[in-house]
């Protein structure tokens, strides 16, 4: 390989290394990194939806979804009743379940989209007006909205019903295939929202301390990429799981 080691084109001396490079250089590199992570996340979302649609398609033993289930008590409640009272079924908690609440599903999605919108608008404002203080305020607002979405996601998780199912020659509580797939999807949403809340908090603090400002905004943009992706993924998830669920 023929090389010219005395080139004047070299932007970085040996004592500046790769460790403190111009922001635009770091920005380009980190932008690609974020897009690659988002690419990996897209595969993950695809795998989750594949699971959901595959289990629905196979519908093993007709158990994709149960129209009846039990909720409101911890697992041990039912387990003890079965064991102690010889297998009687706890009638008072029998409720009609079917699909999970579409309203709650879409509420989380709307909150995620709103938080992404706020963070995007905040970044545009920062780049236009160079006002880091208002950016910090909006990032905080976006974080609060995300925390609210987290609360509703936890509520979603807690209300996934169980059915009685045979397991190793005994009756036990289990989630149907639909509820299992939804638990994985909602759990994944929860993890993503927690990451967003962390990033939002970071943007709030960093912009308040001047680490993100009118000239140093590339991290705000990187976070926005991921935030918008999570919002888009949330819309896809809600659209699929609320329109393709029951089997007729």
């Amino acid at each position, binding site marked *: *390989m023929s*090389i010219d*080691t005395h080139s004047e084109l070299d932007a*970085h001396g040996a004592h500046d290394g*790769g460790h403190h490079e111009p922001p635009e250089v770091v920005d380009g590199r980190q932008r690609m990194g974020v897009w690659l992570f988002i690419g*990996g996340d897209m*595969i993950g979302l695809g*795998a989750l939806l594949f699971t959901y649609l595959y289990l629905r398609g*196979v519908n*093993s033993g007709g158990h994709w979804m149960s129209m009846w289930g039990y909720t409101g008590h911890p697992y041990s409640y039912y387990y003890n009743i079965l064991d102690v009272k010889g297998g009687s079924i706890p009638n008072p908690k029998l409720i009609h379940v079917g699909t999970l609440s579409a309203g709650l599903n879409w509420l989380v999605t709307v909150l995620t989209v709103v938080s992404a919108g706020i963070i995007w608008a905040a970044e545009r404002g920062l780049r236009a007006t160079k006002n880091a203080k208002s950016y910090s305020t909006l990032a905080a607002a976006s974080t609060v909205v995300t925390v609210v979405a987290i609360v509703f996601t936890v509520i979603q998780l807690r209300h996934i019903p169980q059915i009685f199912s045979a397991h190793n020659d005994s009756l036990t509580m289990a989630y149907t295939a639909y509820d299992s797939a939804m638990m994985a999807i909602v759990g994944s949403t929860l993890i993503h929202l927690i990451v967003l809340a962390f990033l939002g908090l970071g943007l709030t603090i960093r912009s308040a301390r001047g680490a993100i400002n009118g000239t140093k905004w590339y991290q705000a943009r990187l976070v926005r990429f991921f935030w918008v992706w999570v919002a888009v993924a949330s819309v896809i998830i809600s659209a699929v799981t609320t329109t393709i669920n029951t089997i007729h």
Partner: protein
Amino acid sequence: MTTTLEQAKTAAIPQGGGLHRRLNMATAMIGGIVFASLFWYLAHHFLDATSRTYSDEVAGSLTIGWIVGFWLGIGAFVAPLRWLIGRDNTRADDLYLAGQGQGTSRYWKFTTDHKVVGVQYIIMTMVLLGAGGILAMAIRTELIVPGNHFVNQQVYNGFIAVHGMLMILALIVAVAGPWGNFVVPIMCGARDMAFPRLNALSLWTLVGAAGLLLTTLAVGSLTMGWVVLEPIADQAGVGMDFFAMAIIVFTVSTTVAGVNTICTILTMRTKGMTLARLPIFVWGAIIAAALGLYAFPYFSLVEAQTLMDRTFSTSFFVANAGGTGWLQANLFWLMGHPEVYVILLPAVAALFEIAAVMSRKPVFSYRSAVAGMTGLAGLSILVWAHHMFTTGWAPTLGGPFMLTTELISIPTGLFFLVLIGTLWRGNIWMKLPTIWMFGFIANFIIAGVTGIYLSDIPLDDQLHGTMFVTAHFHYVFVGSVLFGAVSALAFWYPKVTGRFLNEFMGRISFWLTFIGVQVTFLAMFASGLRGMPRRYSSYAFIFEHTNLMTTIGAYIIMAGMLVLLGAVITSWNKGEPAGPNPWHANSLEWMVPTPVPLENFEVLPVITEDPYNYGEELVRS
């Protein structure tokens, strides 16, 4: 001649580093154990002990505690927390993290210098291969005669599962880990990887995952093979929880490493280093990284689902609540076949590189080599169901999957064409890297041809689940990838240490391993063709002789590997001095001094031609 290890002591230790100054592998282990104990205690006392899944919930909590504590103890959370509060690293912090002036102690820390991470990967690979190899010997000892009781059947099952997974993890990182880190950034003309802290994170996350995986043997009850067959895995003991969590953590490591590799190659190439001038090994590294990025989310998800079935009573794989084992098979093999090429491609690309240097010729049909690797990666995501021909899943798709699988012969054939074309009429220098490369070529032919048999449905119906399959993929992984990995080790070892790998011991190791592979796996093919099933701890007397041969061959391989280990250790400080460019190569890693300085280049080079223009120079002297 000093080694990389010795030179680092001459520079002063920078002032920065903060909390990192107190953290190392010992604190990571302590953190892991403390948090695992804490999480176990909390789970034990606060979870519902009457629950059917109680023991799995406790085990799952313990594994989470281990990895959280390990990350805390090594310092993985320092940077995110500093980012959160707006206190970014100073230049002194970065230099401290890069290991400046810290001698050998930097190899046991969260060090960001890509060369240190490369050496850490070498050590990690050897540890994983060693542990997996010991288990292989135990398995073969059990099978030396029918009805042997060297270990009981439950322990044997655990050995099968952990041996398989340890070896897979080891081979995933065997070439891409050490050399993707040590030489790829230098080959590109970069001062470090794109994300040095993520680089260290990926390495130490792998260490944490390996800790969990090795622990599974002590916990036991692994009945499901390395492919984590469902619904058996739902019924396995708590060792399965450790196993699944280890894989999930491992996929975090590979994802982070893959993103880092791709970003480094695409965004940090020096001026003039166009894609057409990239050393061919760099192409192998980026294609394998991209394929890993596609494949490993499936791995992560399927293991997470297994854990959820076991701890939360979900029913992904439980048929009487709507689940199905086919889901596991699909998700696993969506990952499983691309993963074979994540393992293979870096080794093949390293051999292209070595063939060019050792025969003093350009890589034959460079573009075909790149096209072959890209084509193989593309096809590999379309073949997963050939692992499920006999399961009854979607029989009508058998034909298309048979076709896509057989199409893989085309890019694989290109590999042979490129390798042999590069060597053809070259002035071949028969040194250690070349010898192991020839071993690869011989073994890879057998691996490839037997793979074609298995892609044909009528034959697969007969051979599926037999030792024939085991022999086939061992020719791929041991006969091919391991030989490629050792060739790469012998080739770049002088750049790491400043010394040659001991030639005599390396040749003894080669012949022992090469002969051992033929004895072991040809006999295993014979067992398989006669109908011996895989994963059994005993067998009928008709398989007695071929199994005895296989076990003897396995011991010979182990002897070869021990000799190689001896060569690596003794050559590190006492090997023949090699100088900065012992192979008279033209790519950038050979243009920098040995030991390589902290940021690789005094001034970033500008590239004006490809790395394979050797002119009339002859290497023999």
